[in-house]
Every structure is written in structure tokens, then in C-alpha cells.
């Protein structure tokens, strides 16, 4: 009985340590930020990216500067990354006519600040060749996870960026930005 008691305490401490590390990993705001787009471009150049590929996302007003990682959706599974913002590669590239979909975790190191976004603020997309395009936030809205209408293609040139929000991540906070 005493052995079981000790075992439970040790397992408990271990689990809490893992949970604490996980919490730190998700909320350390400096973990993923890149300070200079140029440096980031050099890194990405080594991994066979096209010049027109989006590689960085900046929302100056919210202090967000993150790498963009290509992601797939297949068999009801969304690829997600803990290294930046996911760009759904079955949608048009940011800056092309249509709806370009990006999403990221609501961790402190990624998009925790996104729900503070306001219409009129700018989202900048950085491309592999160092060029940039600015998008103006026109809508923000909290939706349910099954509201897939935000993913549908459009006739304008926009990016749709979203993250989890609400009690126990039960909602999605969606930011829509149109090319300036």
C-alpha cells in the first residue's frame, strides 16, 4: 500500500511537470518570433521554397511576427504546427484572388493576441523573395468550430486567419483581411 501511495505521488509530480512545461512552451511569447525577415528568408531558402511562397506573417499592432508553415487538410485531419502559423495549401496563396486560409494555435507564443485584432489594422505577409503584401483587417468574428463557411473561396483577394477562442477552446476567432 505504501509503495502504491509513493508511486501515485511520483506519477502525479511527473504529470504536473509535463503539464507545466507544456504550458510554458505554449505561452513563452519569445519562443517563435523572428526579428528580421531577411534572416528567416535565408533559413527557408535552404528548404526549396518558391520565391512566391508566403513565409512570414506580421501584425505589428498585436506584436505578432511568425513563420508561415504549409499545411494540408486530408481525411478530416488538419495539419497544425507548433512552429508558427499554418497556411492551408489547398487554398490560394495570400495575395492571389480568392480566400487564403491561415490558422494557428492560441498559445502565447503564436496567436493568443489575435482576438485583440480590430478592423483597420494591417496584416503583412512576407514572401520567400523578401517582398511583402499588406492586408487590411475588415472583419473579426467569433464562430463555432463547425462554421466552415469562412473557408469558402471568394471573388476578392483576402486572407482568413483564425485561432481557437472561448471557454475550453469551444469557439474560433476569425479575422478577415483584404488586400490593400
Amino acid at each position, binding site marked *: 500500500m505504501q509503495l502504491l501511495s509513493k*508511486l*501515485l505521488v511520483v506519477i*502525479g509530480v511527473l504529470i504536473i511537470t509535463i503539464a507545466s512545461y507544456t504550458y510554458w512552451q505554449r505561452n513563452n511569447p519569445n519562443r517563435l518570433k523572428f526579428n528580421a525577415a531577411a534572416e528567416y528568408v535565408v533559413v527557408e531558402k535552404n528548404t526549396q521554397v518558391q520565391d512566391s511562397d508566403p513565409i512570414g506573417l506580421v501584425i505589428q499592432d498585436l506584436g505578432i511576427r511568425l513563420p508561415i508553415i504549409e499545411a494540408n*487538410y486530408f481525411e478530416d485531419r488538419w495539419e497544425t504546427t507548433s512552429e508558427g502559423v499554418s497556411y492551408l495549401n*489547398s487554398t490560394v496563396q495570400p495575395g492571389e484572388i480568392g480566400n487564403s486560409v491561415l490558422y494557428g494555435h492560441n498559445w502565447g507564443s503564436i496567436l493568443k493576441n489575435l482576438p485583440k485584432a480590430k478592423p483597420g489594422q494591417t496584416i503583412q505577409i512576407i514572401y520567400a523573395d523578401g517582398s511583402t503584401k499588406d492586408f487590411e483587417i475588415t472583419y473579426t468574428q*467569433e464562430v463555432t468550430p463547425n462554421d466552415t*463557411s*469562412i473557408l469558402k473561396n471568394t471573388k476578392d483577394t483576402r486572407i482568413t486567419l483564425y485561432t481557437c477562442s472561448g471557454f475550453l477552446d469551444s469557439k474560433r476567432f476569425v479575422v478577415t483581411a483584404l488586400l490593400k
Partner: protein
Amino acid sequence: MKYIISTILSAVILVASAQAAFAYSAPDYPTCSNPEGILKVRYDEGDHGIVGEDHLFSGSDEVYTLSDTSLLQCFCADNGGGIQTNWWKVSDLSQNDIDSLIKQGWIFVADGAGWGLDNAPYLAKNNDYSCKDSENSDDSGEVLSSSTEAPGIGGAVLGLAATGDNKFVIAWLSLGVACISGGLILRRSK
């Protein structure tokens, strides 16, 4: 003791898995940031009524017809505060169903004619959003952001990506605390 525990567990599972059975299926509504349907009416400015509100709001207003029984109203106030109203014509619903939907936050409108809709009963639900009232909006009447299925995702997507895992962290913390508590209780009860 075993009997009591299993009875309580069964009751909890039964209640948790129980779902009310209704004769209706609520329509799907797009968001005002990416509206669909046919533009029914559009006002770039002016005072507009919002169902459930007792005063007028100043700003732009658009209404889209989604189907024979559903419409989407997108109001964008001059200050950027938006209200999305989902309209549902409920002529075919029973009073019990309507009462049940009212409890879920829908607002009953006995006659839609007062809101420029058909002469029929409607339910309406408001959701807030933020918008940028476009000063140079196109008045052509065409829906600028008229949605089409995006290549590769289309109707196959059942939900949006889960981009948060607070549940995971909370679950692990709870499990850790439970283990330590269990261990300490065992030690004391020795």
C-alpha cells in the same frame, strides 16, 4: 456499494449522452465576413432596426436570401460594431418547437412583414462581429465576396482546425493533482 456506484455512473452517462429529439433542423448560416446567397437589399447608410433591440442603429445594412426559409442580415455600425442576424421563416414549425428554440436564444417575430420579409412568422438570432464600414463600397448590387467552394476543401470539411489545447493542459494538471491526492490519502489511511 458497488450497486450504488454503478447506478450513479449509469445515470451520469445517460444524462450526458441524452439529446433532445426535435422535428426541425435549423438552417446553416454563413458569416457576415463571407456572406453567401443573393443580395436582397443593401443600404450604405441610414438608421436601421435590429430585432430584439429597442432603438435604431446608424450604419450600413445588407440582407442576403439564403433559401426559401432563411436570410442573413449584416449590419455594420458607423463605429465598426457589427450585428449579424440569422432569420428563419418558421411557418412549418410547431409551437412546441418554436418554444424550444426561443429557449435557445432565438427571438420570435410573429410577422416578418414589419421587417421587409414575407408575411409569416420568423425566428431571429443575433451575433456580434466587428467590421470596417467600407466608404468606397461597390453599389452595383453584386455580392463582392460571393462564396464558392474552395478547391481542395469544399464541402468535405466538417469543422475548423482545433488550434487550442487548453483542455489538454487542464486535463494533465487535474490528473496530476488527482494522483498526488490519491497517494496522500492512501498514506494517511494506512
